[in-house]
């Protein structure tokens, strides 16, 4: 930890600086391989999505996909501050903030948003901004705040040293390549889905709900080492909503995350990282994108259910159908 000026707004750690625990494991006991999921590659994990849990904000949602847990609040639309420096805004100004809780990942995060959190925030912005009917809320601001409480990453393995006959070794771990893309991809897809639900809960008008999808392509490890890359590419395995640990004997090639508007069949946000061959034009990328879209469609089903549940709850409580206006159209949009 670099010696930085202490944050005077928070309680600070001891001035000596602290380091995250590093584990020592004997090579014989070896890396404990994460459990392989029995989930078929074309199935996404179960999503738990609930809206309206926070009473003091306009809209909120809570999403849970296996270890990933995140809470989203939507504040606003509220008027922009009336200062001379505020420019006129004909459309609502959307801001998105994504913050990991300090204890949400293997390496403890700081309190100030780091570059990857800012990056996630701006990609969430990109996914949502087109879907919101911003022209209906002039001179106002809509804030989407995401708090990630828990996420899936490599676990303590990143901080483990394997010892072999008294000397330490560093091997390239099985998740070495593309792991952060998969981890962040699953988080981003979750953020997009949950943020749409929270926006709907806040009653903000949208063109369509955006659902997030993520897919990764894998190739055989053996195929890669033995022959040229070109041969291995032919038998690809696509996994929707991938876990961090790749399937046995497979090596990740590329990950695609997207925000998808099912009713319009349009992609609002696209992020591909990794290697996508171009021997057959864009065919390889198409396959990957199609898989991610399929994942997003599955998530859309959950999103629709959550919206319906919420509407039902409001109808039961107030006996009016007034807030139904927006969500009722969503039900027809089931992709």
């Amino acid at each position, binding site marked *: 930890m670099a010696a930085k000026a202490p944050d005077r707004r928070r309680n600070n750690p001891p001035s000596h600086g602290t380091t995250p625990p590093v*584990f020592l494991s004997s090579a014989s006991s070896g890396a404990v391989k994460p459990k392989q999921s029995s989930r078929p590659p074309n199935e996404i994990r179960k999503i738990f999505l609930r809206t309206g*849990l926070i*009473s*003091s904000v306009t809209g909120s949602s809570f999403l849970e996909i296996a270890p990933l847990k995140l809470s989203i609040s939507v504040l606003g639309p509220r008027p922009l501050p009336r200062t001379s420096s505020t420019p006129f805004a004909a459309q609502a100004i959307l801001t998105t903030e994504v913050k990991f*809780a*300090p204890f949400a990942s293997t390496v403890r995060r700081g309190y100030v948003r780091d570059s990857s959190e800012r990056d996630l925030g701006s990609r969430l912005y990109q996914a949502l901004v087109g879907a919101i009917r911003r022209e209906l809320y002039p001179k106002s601001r809509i*804030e989407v705040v995401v*708090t990630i409480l828990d*996420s899936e990453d490599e676990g303590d393995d990143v901080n483990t040293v394997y010892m072999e006959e008294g000397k330490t070794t560093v091997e390239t771990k099985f998740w070495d390549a593309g792991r952060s893309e998969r981890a962040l991809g699953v988080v981003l897809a979750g953020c997009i889905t949950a943020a749409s639900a929270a926006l709907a809960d806040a009653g903000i008008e949208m063109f369509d709900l955006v659902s997030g999808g993520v897919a990764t392509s894998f190739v055989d490890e053996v195929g890669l080492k033995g022959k040229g890359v070109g041969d291995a590419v032919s038998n690809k395995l696509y996994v929707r909503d991938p876990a961090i640990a790749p399937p046995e004997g497979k090596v990740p090639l590329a990950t695609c995350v997207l925000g998808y508007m099912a009713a319009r069949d349009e992609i609002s946000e696209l992020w591909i990282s990794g290697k996508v061959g171009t021997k057959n034009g864009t065919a390889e990328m198409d396959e990957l994108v199609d898989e991610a879209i399929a994942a997003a469609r599955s998530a859309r089903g959950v999103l629709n259910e959550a919206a319906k549940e919420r509407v039902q709850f409001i109808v039961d409580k107030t006996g009016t159908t007034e807030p139904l206006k927006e969500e009722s159209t969503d039900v027809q949009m089931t992709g």
Partner: protein
Amino acid sequence: MPTLIRQPNSGERQPPPLTFSTSLFRQISPALYLQRHLLNNPPTRPNGRNPSQCRDFTLTTNSLSHAHGSAVVRSGDTAVVCGIRGEILTIAPGDDPSRFESYNGSPTSAIHACGSRGAGGASWGGLVVPNVELSTGCSKKYPLGPPGGLAQTLSDQLHELVNVTKLVSLDSLRIYDGDNDTTSKMKIKGYWSLYIDVLCISLDGNILDAAWYAIVAALKSSKLPFASWNQIEERVFCDPSRYHPISLRQSLPFTTTFALVPVPASAGGEVGEVALLLNDPDSYEEDEACEILTILSTTDLGTAQGDFSQLSLGKLRTRVEKIEKRGGWKLGISQIEDCTQLAASKAARYIHTLAKEQLTPM
């Protein structure tokens, strides 16, 4: 709402009183609205509770995968998540470990302030670092961005509570030299530093009680990996297969918070105001309160432990450790006594829920 604008005409009759719907009344005159509720017989708060009633709460521990210990506390519409992560502080060769061993004497706020806020406390209190995060969109009122006044005050309060109660015993935080474990005096090579982060997910009053309870529950459920000094590599390594709990003090302290709300009362022909104590205030009540009273107490369940249903208030043995009343209103001794009783019963419920949660297999 019919609103009529009249010309101020002398000699006219009194204008008819304005009437509002209940929800509007609640918005435009919260103080009066609260008073009217509390003047009912029996006094009822706007949220339907009676003044001494606290909200129901739920506790879930160890639901997070990356924290060494965690707790989620939901009390009414206030929800907090507390996660604890241990990091290792390695003592440099020239350092004197006794700096970390002292409990920092009497943590008056002056010492405390320079200990924690300055260059990072080197005292014992510096090993446990609680922070509260409110910038999570938990409430419309609380702005996003760096911690504001409330978050800073809370972090400070919690830090002081950790120090003053000596909640965490130092034993489980020491890290020894692993290679000479049989020698008479094992050398301390480092310490675990505990980062306690409380995130407020939903804010509806009385966050201190919820946060403190979450901290205690999370600490209670924490497991740290077994760490020792490795001489070959010259750094502290952890054993991925062995974990130990953090040892806490014997009887756990809990806080109970009351809001003092002034209500008009006539005593002996004189019309004045007396303070009514509201247990576990929500944010609407907190906004109107003239003062907040916090009692830190430990409760010994005695023989009744384990069977909550047979617990009666009389059997509880309560020790008050700290009363925080910042001044601003006067309070009778009998009222303080009542509060202590309520605090005792609440602490008993806390302990009971915690014990139940610990027993539940994960």
